[in-house]
């Protein structure tokens, strides 16, 4: 059982890490600010979600698991708001490098 959970964890965590890498690549390669913004926030949040999902089986207690989910929720919420705020700021002072 725990071996299966271990494998699940490893797979999910690896997938999450790859998504982080994808976000970084997107940031480096995409042409304009808004699509870069999009790439990084989506990829990172999905990555964090996968990692949280992967770590859930390893959580020592229910509170520990709840905290993990809270971290993800918080990051989700803040990233959504922040990218909106940032998007506006980009539109207002649009200036391509």
């Amino acid at each position, binding site marked *: 059982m725990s071996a299966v959970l271990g494998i699940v964890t490893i797979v999910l965590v690896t997938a999450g890490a790859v998504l982080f890498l994808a976000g970084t690549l997107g940031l480096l390669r995409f042409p304009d600010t808004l699509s870069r913004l999009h790439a990084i926030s989506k990829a990172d949040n999905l990555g964090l979600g996968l990692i949280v999902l992967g770590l859930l089986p390893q959580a020592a207690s229910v509170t520990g698991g709840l905290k993990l989910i*809270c971290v993800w929720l*918080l990051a989700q*919420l*803040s990233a959504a*708001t922040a990218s*909106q*705020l940032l998007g*506006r700021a980009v539109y207002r002072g649009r200036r391509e490098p």
Partner: protein
Amino acid sequence: MTLLLDLALVAWLLALAVHVVVQRGERSAIIAFLAFGLLLGLAWVRLAAPDVALTEIAIGGGGTGILLLRAEAVLRGRGKEEEPMTRAGKLAVAVGCAAISAGLGLAVLSFASPAPTLAPAAAEALGATGLGNPVTAVLLAYRALDTLLEKIVVLLALIGVWSLAPDGVWDGAPEVKPAIVPGPLTYLARILPPFGIVIGVYMFWVGADAPGGTFQAGTVLAAMWLLVMMAGLKPPPDTSRPLLVLALTGGPALFLAIAFLGSIFAEGFLAYPEGLAKPLIVAIEAALTLSVAAALAMLVAGPARKAPAR
């Protein structure tokens, strides 16, 4: 593997610090400094100091960051900079600083071995306090005098900041809300504070036995209050408002009262009666958390800008 991780962290921290120093634009430098503060939290976790990590992220990353960014927004375009140093002067200073760093590095490496430590003493005395978190025990029992005086330091800084208001509006309210409040900000100011308050209360509550405590909780609450004020959902209070004054002085006053009672009912000033140590410490922490929250938020808000509403 962990060594590699530590090395990467150190390299990243140093790179960010250098970036902060050499960056031309003020805002970019401050943003990099913010990132530096958050990253430092990771370093503290690696140093087995979660209490410090929480404080550093909350105060170093959150508090100082917003303080500097707000200042930069006001100062931009007005800054009177002093004459920059000559290249030779800078080089000389750089050599001097490098020498200091090198000497310091040698001193760090030459520390006595085995390392002198108060950990056993702190562990032994922990039982008398009834606490589970040794850092809280140091802050509120063994070295409570430092903590008490440091609360006064924070209060003095606030009085100092307030004293910079123009004469007429001195006891009025500071201004925190920007001219334009973007919609998402209002949204965040409605959604985030409930989370923040829960996290703040949790930090305070676990502080007695696990990492956390009054500073961390106070800073979280302060940040949430600032968020609400910035979004314009609640106006900042007049600096002379009784409720604010009560929140600010309540913590230190309770601390002092219990300290003096200790010299009557316990072994001395700032000593706790046996068996009552933990409840008393938790009571002090509760009051201090509110004081810290009020003081830090008002420190960031700055001096009064509007005449008091009378």
